[in-house]
């Protein structure tokens, strides 16, 4: 698809930001997003090409403003919902629960 992921030749992104000696993950949520994506890939409800396509389906403006593991997370959420393993509602409810400190 002609999505925002198809970046070859685009202008305007500026210089390459090379951090040098960078860590493997930059935050704990990246570790967790990476690991649940690989674990669910091994589960086998979808194949790797379906998982790539799920990442490409993001809204273009959203894709360009997000980071690599945010793309992974978006794709994983889409696949979980499409495959019926989780519903949009239960994810939203869990996010709301987590956002509210326990009484």
């Amino acid at each position, binding site marked *: 698809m002609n999505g925002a992921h*198809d970046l070859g*030749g685009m202008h305007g992104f500026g210089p390459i930001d090379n951090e040098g000696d960078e860590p493997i993950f930059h935050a704990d949520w990246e570790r967790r997003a990476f690991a649940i994506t690989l*674990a669910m890939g*091994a589960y086998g409800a979808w194949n790797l090409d*379906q998982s790539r*396509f799920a990442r490409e389906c993001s809204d273009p403006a959203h894709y360009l403003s997000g980071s690599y593991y945010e793309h992974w997370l978006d794709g994983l959420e889409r696949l979980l919902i499409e495959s019926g393993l989780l519903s949009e509602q239960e994810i939203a409810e869990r996010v709301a629960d987590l956002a509210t400190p326990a009484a």
Partner: protein
Amino acid sequence: MPVLTAKQVEPELRRGSSTRMAVDVDPRFRVGDEVITRKMNPRGHTRLPRYARGRRGIVVRDHGVFIFPDRHAADGLKTPQRLYSVRFSHHELWGPNHDRPDVTRAGFPPINASIFLDLFDEYLESL
């Protein structure tokens, strides 16, 4: 479906998931053939980037037969297709402007470069 356990992680990663297929498909192209990529704008998944559609290149390597990802992403079917390495000149993909001295001053030095893409059989037509 199987839930991945901690013990399975190492062997599972080591095995990987090659999409190479043990089936023979006659190659439509040979190393050295001149080809042109199809002009296509599929709404589904594809590995042919926009910048290399409708461009002329030369087949430099036949990688063998792999699962065709465009179809695999669409409905999970594993259809075999040959994958070739195709070489494009920088000029063919991006035009002559990057060689102009005035453009050089804007940050594009003269270029002696080629770009190589791994392309599936049905992305290609004979020239």
